[in-house]
């Protein structure tokens, strides 16, 4: 426990140190204030923007898109993962594809998505799912692979049916791995959707950043970047902590 606290405190100290360093570098004009502004200024600008509600619409837009993309990515990825797991041959063929998938800049398919889904927020959602689905598939496969054989045999020794086995043995056993998939799907949804908004959209946080960037409104831009950073890291840390707790509960001594 004390060690855990020491780790957390050190981590906070490092982050704080970095922020202070950044602040100092900016305040001492070691970098051009037109390119980088001090963190404190980012924070106050952000506070002002949040208080005035001027970015509430963008926040709502991005978060709802992300939420839909994550839910869909997790559901689709899990279903596909379960299906692929049942078909080892398909899986062998897909193995190198799944791993190289990440090198494809998916947003180049935007015109394709528009053609298929129309000019609305669906292409953006698809963009958000593009990396999340394979991540979830891989996580599901990983989780299913690691359901100990003896637990499956235990299920049979209790005469459980297929669904009962899935619900009471397979799912709980694979949960920590599934959670890793959810975490990745969330991160990728943010990455994909904000990148998509950055390049293509007319609303949302990504667009707001791009708009500020294009208009040389550095304070706004950095404030928004800070906001995204804090939110994404916060969500990520929360899931990380939850995952850690699950894993620790299960780690064999």
């Amino acid at each position, binding site marked *: 426990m004390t060690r855990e606290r020491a780790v957390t405190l050190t981590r906070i100290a490092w982050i704080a140190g970095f922020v202070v360093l950044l602040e100092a570098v900016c305040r001492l004009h070691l970098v051009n204030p037109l390119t980088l502004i001090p963190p404190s200024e980012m924070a106050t600008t952000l506070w002002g923007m949040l208080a005035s509600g001027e970015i509430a619409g963008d926040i709502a837009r991005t978060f709802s898109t992300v939420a839909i993309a994550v839910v869909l990515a997790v559901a689709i990825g899990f279903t596909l993962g379960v299906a692929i797991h049942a078909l080892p041959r398909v899986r062998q063929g897909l193995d190198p594809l799944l791993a190289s998938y990440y090198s494809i800049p998916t947003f180049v398919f935007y015109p394709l998505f528009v053609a298929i889904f129309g000019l609305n927020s669906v292409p953006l959602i698809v963009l958000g799912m593009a990396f999340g689905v394979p991540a979830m598939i891989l996580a599901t496969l990983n989780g299913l692979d690691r359901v*100990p054989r003896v637990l499956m045999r235990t299920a049979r020794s*209790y*005469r*459980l049916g297929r669904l009962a086995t899935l619900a*009471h043995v397979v799912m709980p056993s694979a949960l920590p791995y599934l959670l890793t998939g959810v975490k990745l799907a969330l991160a990728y949804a943010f990455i994909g959707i904000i990148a998509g908004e950055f390049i293509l959209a007319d609303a949302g946080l990504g667009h707001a950043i791009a708009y500020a960037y294009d208009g040389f409104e550095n304070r706004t831009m950095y404030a928004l970047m800070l906001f995204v950073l804090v939110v994404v890291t916060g969500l990520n840390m929360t899931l990380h902590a939850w995952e850690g707790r699950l894993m620790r*509960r299960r780690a064999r001594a």
Partner: protein
Amino acid sequence: MAVVALSADPRGMPAQTREVHAALRGVTRVYGRLAALGPLDLDLVKGEFFSVVGPSGCGKSTLLDVLSGLGRPNAGSVTFEGAPVAGVPDGVGIVFQEDASFPWLTVADNVAFGLRRAGTDPAEIARRVDYALGFMGLTDFAGAYPAQLSGGMRQRVCIARTLVTQPRLILLDEPFGALDQQTRLLMGDELLRLWRETGATVLLITHALDEAAMLSDRIGVMSSRPGRFIEIVETGWPRERDSRIVAEERFGHVTARLWSHLREESLKAIGKKSVP
């Protein structure tokens, strides 16, 4: 149920006339081109404590698979309480060699698992789980997760989980494999107590000759693969017994007898002709 009268014969029936609880007849099991088991006959007598020893890879777990209905024989028949076995029959409980506790459930929830799945009345579940935890010395750990327990305690959780369903035939595949010999002997004492109290039939697979010698009414010694019974040793222990028996002379005789049978078979199994 079949009642047969036989002297100790290749099917492994005891000398007196007793009720047959489960039976294998001409059972073989083949994995691809590998003959893993049999042909083999066995009659388990109702209420007896039967152990199986044999060299590694000789087909002991395969025997348990077939007997429990987890696997099917390639030839021969398996019956439990007179009915042919297909799938794990009601009344059969299995404890596996590997740790099979569910890491996401507390000890109490683990033990209650089978009863909940079967839709037993909650009050009845609580009663039985309490009893099983007490019996296995786990009461203080009811709320703990398996990861917080030692390997031996987790194995006790699995045993308790099987016992609460009150199986009439208990199959144990090297349940104490993770324990050191001394703890294993002590756990054997618990198992004996349980066997006496429930009157269940027990089939125990083990690689520890002293464990088999101390616990069993009869011990089936298997040949190297494909496994068959070379001999069935009767110990003649009283129903009331415990690990203190290892200090006795006749205990030494039983283990020596088992070892003399197994030495050659084990040498075959590890791929050596004989120790110079």
